[in-house]
């Protein structure tokens, strides 16, 4: 099937549809890869869609300790994730919303989502969720500089503060950029794993609450708010995944080829995450800051290389 070159508005519609509908597929893929690696058949790839449909029909139960703040977490996560998804390019396919300085909004939107999630965890009054919240803020404060230093390096290289120019700009192809770019990607890969609560930072499957970070914060959510939590988490995988892949995706002449490339890249990323999860164990809590510091250092070196 060969598509004609897509118009700008069609690109936008595609972007929006991808952003809205694709995210739940990624956790499904990751879980499938993990199951295959472990020799199981595993849940269907579309499992999260089924879960969301089921949760949307269920009644939510609210603890008597909670207030309206409890709802701010799920609602804020989804809203922030969707707006951030409009700012980030999905490969070389054009971004609906792009302006100088959008990268700062992008980073702070994730800060907003995290802040609201932490507050809604504290709203339950449960010590488990308090513990998860404390770990989340501690680790994410370390992930933030790694993300920002990477942005700084790319901004310096492309002389722009707009995500689409920074990630896809022509400056990235030059030989001088190869070293810093690899370092930035290493730093961001660590941020990607930490922010999405994946192994080796956090284990999304564990049932031992004392070792969890992100999952423990949402223990008390149910019904539609929980659907929003799950959807928000998968949205984050898509958006941060796009951020991680954009600089390495080649530019194809046709728009539909670019979309295909983006889809393939996303699939490869999901497989990679699944492989990492199958082959490594979660770090001890005390090791996690060191891992995140490695991310900061990688991004900082990239920045320094471009500064001198």
């Amino acid at each position: 099937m060969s598509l004609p070159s897509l118009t700008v508005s069609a690109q936008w519609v595609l972007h929006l549809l991808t952003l809205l509908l694709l995210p739940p597929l990624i956790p499904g893929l990751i879980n499938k890869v993990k199951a295959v690696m472990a020799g199981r058949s595993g849940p269907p790839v579309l499992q999260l869609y089924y879960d969301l449909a089921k949760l949307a029909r269920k009644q939510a139960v609210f603890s008597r300790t909670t207030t309206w703040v409890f709802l701010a977490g799920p609602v804020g996560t989804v809203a922030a994730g969707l707006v951030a998804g409009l700012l980030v390019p999905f490969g070389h396919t054009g971004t609906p919303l792009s302006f100088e300085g959008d990268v700062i909004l992008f980073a702070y939107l994730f800060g907003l989502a995290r802040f609201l999630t932490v507050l809604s965890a504290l709203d339950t009054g449960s010590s488990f969720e308090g513990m998860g919240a404390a770990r989340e803020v501690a680790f994410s404060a370390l992930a933030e500089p790694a993300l920002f230093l990477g942005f700084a390096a790319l901004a310096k290289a492309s002389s722009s503060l707009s995500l689409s120019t920074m990630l896809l700009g022509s400056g990235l192809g030059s030989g001088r950029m190869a070293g810093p770019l690899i370092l930035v990607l290493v730093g961001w890969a660590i941020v990607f794993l930490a922010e999405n609560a994946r192994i080796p930072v956090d284990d999304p499957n564990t049932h031992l609450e004392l070792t969890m970070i992100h999952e423990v914060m949402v223990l008390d959510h149910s019904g539609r708010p929980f659907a929003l939590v799950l959807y928000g988490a998968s949205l984050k995988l898509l958006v941060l995944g796009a951020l991680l892949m954009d600089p390495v995706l080649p530019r194809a002449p046709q728009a539909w080829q670019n979309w295909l490339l983006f889809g393939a890249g996303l699939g490869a990323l999901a497989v990679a995450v699944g492989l990492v999860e199958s082959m490594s164990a979660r770090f001890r809590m005390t090791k996690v800051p060191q891992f995140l510091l490695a991310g900061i250092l990688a991004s900082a070196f990239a920045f320094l290389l471009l500064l001198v």
Partner: protein
Amino acid sequence: MLDVALVLLAACSWIGASLLSLSGKLDERWSRWLGLCGALVGILGAGHGLLGGVPSRLDFPFWHGTARLESDALSAAFLLPLHLVAGLGVAYGKEYWPLNHLRGTGRSLRFHFGLLVAAMTCLLVARHGLVFLLAWEVMAVCAFFLIGTDHELSEVRHASWVYLVCTHTGTALLTAMTILLARRSGSLLWLPIPAGPSPLDGWILLLAILGFGFKAGFLPLHFWLPSAHAGAPSHVSAMLSAVMLKMGIYGILRVSGLLPAIPRGFGAALLALGALSAVYGVGNALAQRDYKRLLAYSSIENLGIIGMGVGLGLAGRANHDPWLVALGFGGAVFHVWNHALFKSLLFFGAGSVLHATGTRDMEALGGLASRMPRTALLLFPAVLAVSALPPFNAFLSEWFLYRGIFASLSSGYLWSAALALVALAFTGGLAAVAFAKFYGILFLGTPRSPAASHAHDPSRAMLLPMAILACLCLGTGLAGPLLLPSLDRIVAVAAPGGSVPLGPGLGTDLRFLVGAETLLLAVAFTAYLWWRRALVPPGRAEFRPPTWDCGYALTLPRAEYTGSSFSDAWAPVLPGLKARIRRLTGNFPKPVAFRSEFRDVVGERYLGPRMERLAARLLRFRRLQPGYLSVYILYVLLALLGAFLWMGLRGRLLG
């Protein structure tokens, strides 16, 4: 003439309000209304100046010459938050600190409050070294009495004395600066100095940064600030933090604006100093148990951020980069406004909590969101704003600063911008931790003490000022593009001739940014509505079980996560926080206690003991003070003789 007349009228109303409050016969209402009138007139005058009114001035004879009062855009930029916060503070203080509260301290509080506002108003329009210093001194002394309002507590007395010593050290430096400035320009009037290099410029700027830095709480000079803000009545803390600290920023902007050129290096140094202050302030805010102290440390953080903006602007002036000047100074002034809005809201909220529970200890609170629902709702925008999260106001001003930092990075001459970038990102992350702790431990979960479980919302008189500020926090965040022309006018005064308008370079991006923020609110609202539809199915009662908590049916408040454990991950990097843990030993260990305390590294750990030792040594001079009048007259005589001798011999000794 109009603006300066309005501003003077405002100052007179505030003085009148403060005098009326002394009278025991008149009803308190008169003084309050006069103060509110003053605030309104001040806001009008400042607003007119910001919206394009021409600078107006008033000359009058003073001390062998003329003195000048002038209201321009830079003055107006600081007059606006001053009168807004002061007016709301007076309204709030009526219930918060009634006239007869604590053995009649309310009267002294009202008197000094009005005088403080009038002094700051005069300071902002003064264009004469001596008038400025006089107003500065009145402000400093009023603030001393205000901080010491609750003077029967020894910690409050101590805090106010430390403040007094610090502010006078600052004043001494500023006096030296004024003298140098007068030598440089040839008169005490503060007029733009004509171009031409002079070695004095560097010294003037250095003294200004040090002297005003004491007031603004830049890093090693901040130590007076936390206890002063924690001990003062909450609306006074709001006033000090939201307005008085900014007088330091105003001073640096004003004095540097007089100088024809900025020596190289100052901008980068101030940028680095601001970055360090920001990280230090927010790091220590994390460690606090006292929620008002937490807010005070967060003020150090925000003043550091403003200092970074000023540093960027100065660097831009030194390097003749008008775009950097506009971004730096514009971002700094914008953050001054934003900080004034959200920090006064936070202090008002903290005051309401203190009013309702009587404790400043975070670990004794919790669950206030269901007991004080209105306060909790109104403080929510403030905690998001102080963590610089979209769509609230502080995010926009930090966005300006990020743009400025990146602008200086890509032109490649500012190394400290790299430091500032990391610091600003890290500060944002840590501020979110500190204020998740503030809001989470105070308002969420279950109450940790009877005081917290019996708390209730304050009356409407205290809630209304908070509601106004909360709306302004969101409104300023969404109306950012409309403020650009006013910021341009301010920057043009702070950097005469060396800036470009922000609008052409920033306007479109800012509109997109605000559009994205509006979209965020719309999406959040849609998600909320979607949840709302499935709230409770009809015909079924709402089921509210206790928190699931992994199956523990009884959630004990004692088992809840505390504020200290929430920020425990950062304890190893906080030098001010010391914990004393005794290990359990033996088969039948005795009960052990855990104790942790926080003492500021500069003020309490380093300076405190040294100052005490110095004071003990100085006691030796007590021998000169025997208590006999005749001895003192002898001293006077000796001093006079000495003076005469010096006058007679000076000619011969010095040739």
